[in-house]
């Protein structure tokens, strides 16, 4: 810590930010985000596709925001995910449809009380984000 006299919240925020921003943590978050989003989209979108025309999804994640409990208690913030999803023909590689910058956010408890309630009431926020993102993409895909 550079400062010698800081509040407990500031120490906790600095520590959690430092951990989250370390190269190892960044690599882990990126890998885990990609893995979970892949599984979520595969599960959700496959449910609508029953034919023979082979296709694939190419997804590029632009933003993952997962504010820590300490940050939400002190500063507030909501988990968010933003990614571009391209539907590609399996054979030719031609793009069939694209949804650029599909953004979703979920509610997470803020403030000390909100975080305490949230810890007991909800599960993994990233899984919630993935579920919401995949469902929103699926809805868009089958919309007529």
């Amino acid at each position, binding site marked *: 810590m550079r400062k010698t006299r800081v509040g407990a919240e500031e120490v906790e925020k600095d520590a959690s*930010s430092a951990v*989250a*921003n370390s190269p190892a943590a*960044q690599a882990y*978050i*990126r890998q885990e*985000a*990609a*893995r979970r989003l*892949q599984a979520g*989209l*595969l599960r959700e*979108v*496959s449910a*609508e*596709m*029953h*034919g*023979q*025309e*082979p*296709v*694939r*999804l190419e*997804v*590029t*994640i*632009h*933003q*993952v*925001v997962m504010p820590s409990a300490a940050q*939400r208690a*002190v500063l*507030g*913030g*909501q988990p*968010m995910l933003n*990614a571009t999803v391209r*539907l590609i023909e399996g054979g030719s590689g031609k793009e*069939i*449809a*694209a*949804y*650029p*910058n*599909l*953004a*979703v*956010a*979920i*509610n*997470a408890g*803020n*403030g000390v009380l*909100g975080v305490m309630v949230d810890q007991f009431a909800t599960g993994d926020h990233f899984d919630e984000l993935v579920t919401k993102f995949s469902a929103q993409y699926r809805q*868009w*895909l*089958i*919309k*007529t």
Partner: protein
Amino acid sequence: MHFFRHGAALAALVLAAGCASIPNNPLGLNRVASMRLETVDVQVASDATVW
């Protein structure tokens, strides 16, 4: 309470921005049903904001 409102307002802003730019979907339900999803490739952009 202030932070609670701040967070909710931010989330609403993100969702509003997302809704405002929903692209047209050229496919219909039948076309989608005729497809078979082989793979999902996910990458994180090199300039992505992750925290």
